[in-house]
């Protein structure tokens, strides 16, 4: 059993250096702050995020630093609690996309022929739709709820992973150590798991980090359209949407939007640094697919 020595060394050898980059540090710090907020929101938040007991549409000021919304709820507390809604769901969504896309892509790349044709044509079909519109229709078909929004985004997100994984598997499949494994009589499954998987994991994980931002943007976009979070849940996209109606009270939409921006930014800072740390060839493969 051999691993591709270059690929492994490439990743582990460069990682620590990458982490020393200021951008990665900033991204990491922001991400950690948000994770802490998400975990400790019930303790940290000054108000009950659902209580409608403050004056309506009050501008930011003492007692309510981010202002209040049209029902008299504290926006700061809602933004903090929103982290508990959006962040875990986004992470779960990306994990699911990696799993589904990675598995299908690996099968396509490893088995080739009709398996490959079928999976990749379906992927093409998904790519032929604009993501937002497809996700919108899927979410509408399933009914508005956060779980269904996650499923809808999953439907549009997996093909990116399938393509990258397939490309990587194709590159590895004909390599000596995989061929020798098969000659030794390994089953296809074992060969995939033992020989191929380790060589594909690194790049796919980087793609996943980069994708967390995109996934959060898409998920909150669906909620913005009313196809995601159910009220009165403090979901950031839905909060921005409620701010559209009370345009004058800029704080209603501004702060949840900033929350989305900072989380996405943090993961993009991290992902970008990680990508630079990869060897250039796989990095380019990822770049071209990570749209």
């Amino acid at each position, binding site marked *: 059993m051999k691993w591709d020595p270059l690929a492994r060394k490439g990743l582990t050898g460069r990682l620590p250096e990458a982490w020393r980059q200021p951008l990665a540090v900033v991204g990491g710090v922001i991400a950690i702050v948000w994770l802490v907020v998400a975990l400790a929101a019930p303790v940290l938040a000054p108000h009950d995020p659902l209580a409608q007991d403050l004056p309506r549409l009050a501008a930011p000021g003492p007692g309510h630093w981010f202002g209040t919304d*049209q029902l008299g709820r504290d926006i700061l507390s809602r933004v903090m609690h929103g982290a508990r809604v959006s962040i875990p769901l986004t992470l779960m969504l990306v994990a699911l996309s990696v799993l589904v896309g990675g598995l299908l892509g690996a099968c396509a790349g490893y088995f080739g022929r009709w398996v490959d044709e079928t999976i990749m044509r379906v992927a093409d079909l998904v790519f032929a739709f604009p993501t937002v519109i497809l996700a919108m229709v899927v979410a509408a078909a399933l009914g508005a709820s956060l779980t269904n929004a996650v499923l809808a985004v999953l439907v549009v997100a997996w093909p990116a992973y399938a393509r990258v994984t397939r490309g990587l598997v194709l590159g590895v499949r004909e390599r000596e150590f995989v061929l020798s494994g098969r000659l030794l009589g390994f089953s296809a499954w074992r060969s995939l798991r033992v020989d191929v998987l380790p060589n594909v994991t690194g790049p796919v994980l980087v793609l996943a980090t980069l994708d967390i931002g995109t996934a959060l943007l898409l998920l909150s976009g669906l909620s913005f359209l009313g196809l995601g979070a159910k*009220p009165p849940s403090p979901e950031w996209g839905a909060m921005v949407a409620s701010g559209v109606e009370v345009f004058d009270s800029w704080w209603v939409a501004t702060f949840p939007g900033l929350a989305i921006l900072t989380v996405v930014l943090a993961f993009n800072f991290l992902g970008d640094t990680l990508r630079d740390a990869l060897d250039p060839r796989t990095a380019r493969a990822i770049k071209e697919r990570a749209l």
Partner: protein
Amino acid sequence: MATRSQTAAVLLAGALALAACGSGGSQTPAAQGGGGKTLVIDTSFDLKTADPGRTYEPTGLFVEKAIYETLLTFEGADVTKPVPALAESYELSKDGKVLTLKLKQGATFADGSPVTADDVVFSLTRVRDMKGTPSFLLDGVEVAKEGDSTVTLTSKAANPALPFILPNPALGIINSKLAKQHGATADAQDKAEQYLNSAAAGSGPYTIESFNVSSQVVLKANAKYYGTKPAYDKVVIRNVEAATQKLNVQRGDSQVALNLSGDQVTGMPANLQVKKTASANVIFLLANQDDKVSKTTPNAKFVEAVRKGVDYTGLLELAGEGSTQAPGVIPSQLLGALPADQAAKRDVEGAKAALAASGVANPTVKLEYPSELTVNGLSFQPLAERIQANLKEVGITVDLQPAPVTTALDNYRNGKEELGLWYWGPDYPDPSDYLAFLPGKTVGLRAGWKTGAAKEIEAAGEKAATAIGDDARKQAYADVQTKLNASGPFIPLIQPSQNIVTAASVTGLEYHPVWTVDVAHLGAK
């Protein structure tokens, strides 16, 4: 050969780009000038057609009112008394079945031809027989010509509401000769809609210059109008989101903004006029009476707990100044409305007591509502969230189930909602429209309320339907509503304010519950 494939590729790319862009637009070029005054009105479009026989959306009625004339109309905002329009007088027979209308002489269509009794008969039977959305207005009504200037409308049962129905712009009189030339057959196969979307075949003060259901409608003054000429030569009606309407009217990009919410009209600069009038739309809660739909909501004590648990003042605060609490299902400006002091009041202790008496412990109920629907600029979303918070204090857990209008409305009309948050706007400003809320009728069935479910209320309803004379009707409808409020499945909430903002130069604006605003009555200063 690199050069040849290069040329081919460039040509191809160019051709594709052209094909992608060049499919052509369809906007009609706006004729410039005219010298007269132009009025720009911003509204959120709910518009499908300019064919009066198929119109039932608010923006559609607003547009038709300017293009077509009806037999009767209302003066200003007073909807309690129909007044002559194309008919100079009307008379209802003693049994309430036959309405005789005498036509005004000298009225002409936009092409100069006179409005005749034949046009009236054709237009009204067309609405009835095309089976378009407004066809129920004339269900079972026979239209006949009695001589050159008299028309009779005969109903099978007493129909005292008919004079209140006729002012609906959907019953506008069209030029039958023109319409027939363009495919009008006055039955389900009628093809005149396309034509009526591009040309005005009416006798109203305006005609269509351009008509686009999604972006804008331009009206120009009817050069051959036989009546008083309107103050504006050209009226541009644009489809604009509420938030933008506000900015546009503040900046002077438009002179009228029709759909602002209560929050949006607070703090308007002094150079703008803000008209806040309680609309005739009644927002209500329904509690399903069908025990196959819910085990909880058919319980009368539970409904009482909800009725006492809702914070009506809090809802009015969300709806903004100008809104009023709805004392019954019939809105305040109609004949037969309950006086304001009979409206339900919040009583948390009473609600808790009723809930305890209901025998349902810690109930959880689903509240369905159309998530993106707004009525008079007021969104259903915060209303539902407020009601959820109100009922939580009482001990009722409300699970909010927002859905797009199509999905929600489908569940609603099939009577599948446990609790529903909806509104009803008058199809015609007569209390008989509200008999729909009784058991076995349109709205009653949507609350799972079948015929025979409440005999006493049904009897009161029958009495109201046949009552003749204003006083008798007033009394009968008040009685129906008192009974409905005591034991019916509906909880009337509020009539949100219709907030209209106009530039200082616009005068004479009145909000009308059926057609919003009569453009031809607007003045300029």
